[in-house]
């Protein structure tokens, strides 16, 4: 009797596990193939919208504590950083006074030449609120979402170049996949001939791989790679993406081994612009 009971309990447990595994695989498949993507996206947006006020409320209480603890631990680093920033601020103020006339000239040139990077594209200014919640993706979260005009697929720029692309949007926020994410691939141009290449991420905080450059192509360190904006590209043309850091060529290799560094400062990202531009379908 006890043996039969144990056997039936084991069988029931096996059925439960099998059903759960089957359900998980079905959900993954439906999302992967796009059939349930709309429903899943709606569920994710709703979850973010519902959670955002809770997160803000808890954050308001917890952040001072966290900041105090972080400041206590990193006090010496903060002092050093503070002194460095004060020196840089002084330098910038001096340069600002000297460059006002230069800025006027640049503005005039931009209007004359219609440079794509500085063209009158509508933008949404946003602040980075958090690093992404996953340890398996290089993402950040911004404080502007669909109510501010942000949509999935819009490029995000900051500082000196491309930061990434919006991948998820909810009412009051969005997720941006950084160019350093392993899933990011940006078509770029470089050089006077406008050679083409592909910049791919290798992980958060790591340099970028620049691929598809033919062996023997003329390269130099510090060369800027800008978005190519080819037909059906994910980004408009002319946005700086990376600068070439190192390059080498192996005999019989099919491409140059090139490493780049993002032009945007992704380590200390605080304010960004979301370009209200969408790739063509």
């Amino acid at each position, binding site marked *: 009797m006890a043996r039969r009971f*144990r056997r039936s*309990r084991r069988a*029931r*447990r096996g059925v*439960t*596990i099998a059903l*759960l*595994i089957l*359900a*998980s*695989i*079905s*959900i*993954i498949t439906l*999302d*992967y193939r796009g059939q349930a993507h709309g429903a*899943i996206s709606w*569920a*994710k947006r709703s*979850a*973010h919208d519902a*959670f955002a006020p*809770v*997160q803000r409320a*808890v*954050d308001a209480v*917890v952040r001072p504590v*966290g900041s105090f603890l972080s400041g206590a631990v990193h006090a010496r680093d903060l002092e050093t950083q503070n002194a460095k920033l004060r020196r840089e601020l002084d330098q910038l103020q001096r340069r600002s006074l000297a460059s006002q006339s230069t800025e006027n000239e640049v503005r005039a040139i931009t209007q004359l030449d219609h440079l794509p990077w500085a063209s009158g594209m509508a933008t949404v200014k946003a602040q980075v609120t*958090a*690093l*992404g*919640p*996953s*340890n*398996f*993706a*290089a*993402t950040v979260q911004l404080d502007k979402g669909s109510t501010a005009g942000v949509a999935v697929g819009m490029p995000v720029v900051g500082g000196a170049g491309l930061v990434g692309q919006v*991948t*998820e949007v909810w009412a009051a926020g969005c*997720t941006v*996949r950084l160019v350093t*994410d*392993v*899933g990011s691939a940006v078509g770029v141009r470089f050089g006077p001939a406008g050679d083409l290449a592909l910049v791919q*991420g*290798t*992980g*958060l*905080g*790591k340099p970028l791989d620049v691929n598809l450059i033919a062996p023997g192509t003329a390269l130099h360190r510090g060369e800027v790679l800008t978005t190519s904006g080819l037909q059906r590209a994910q980004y408009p043309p002319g946005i700086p993406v990376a600068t070439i850091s190192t390059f080498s060529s192996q005999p019989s290799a099919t491409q140059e081994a090139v490493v780049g560094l993002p032009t945007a400062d992704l380590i200390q990202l605080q304010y960004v612009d979301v370009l209200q531009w969408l790739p063509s379908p």
Partner: protein
Amino acid sequence: MRTTDVARSTLVVAAVLVVQHTLLDAVRLGGAHPDAMILLPVAAGYAAGPERGAVFGFVAGLVTDLFLPTPYGLSALVGCLLGYGTGLATRGLVRTSWWLPPVVAAAATAAGMVGYAILGAVLGQPGMLRAYLAPAIAVEAPAAALLAIPVVRMVAWALPEPSPGHGAAVGGRLR
């Protein structure tokens, strides 16, 4: 599962989710942060056995995936397997040692991360294995050891009735 179990489990999952996204996501070492959500199925398997651990892990995984950019359902699959595996592996253990939950949590979390990355690579994201797995394990496993005792207590409160035979070897302060 009884209604009170469901209500308590919902509360525990919600509380851990809030702590995860307000506190733990901001703690970064080498680009990775501690993950309390993957600790939930481990704690459920340890405290309540393989079957309830699997169910708890599945549901917690579905909730986790709502906030992640990775394929939806992946955390549910890993959570289900992790809860079941932890429950099976710890079924016959005599639980009088205080260090048992942290050791189990660290080992199971590391195994869960490997499984997560392998499944992600199978689903077309090989970067999960190549670029992110090592720092994730290096940070999450020790963090899981630190968080194990409170999380196991919370889950044991949410799922108070161990299945017959599972609790026979339970002793000491922690289940």
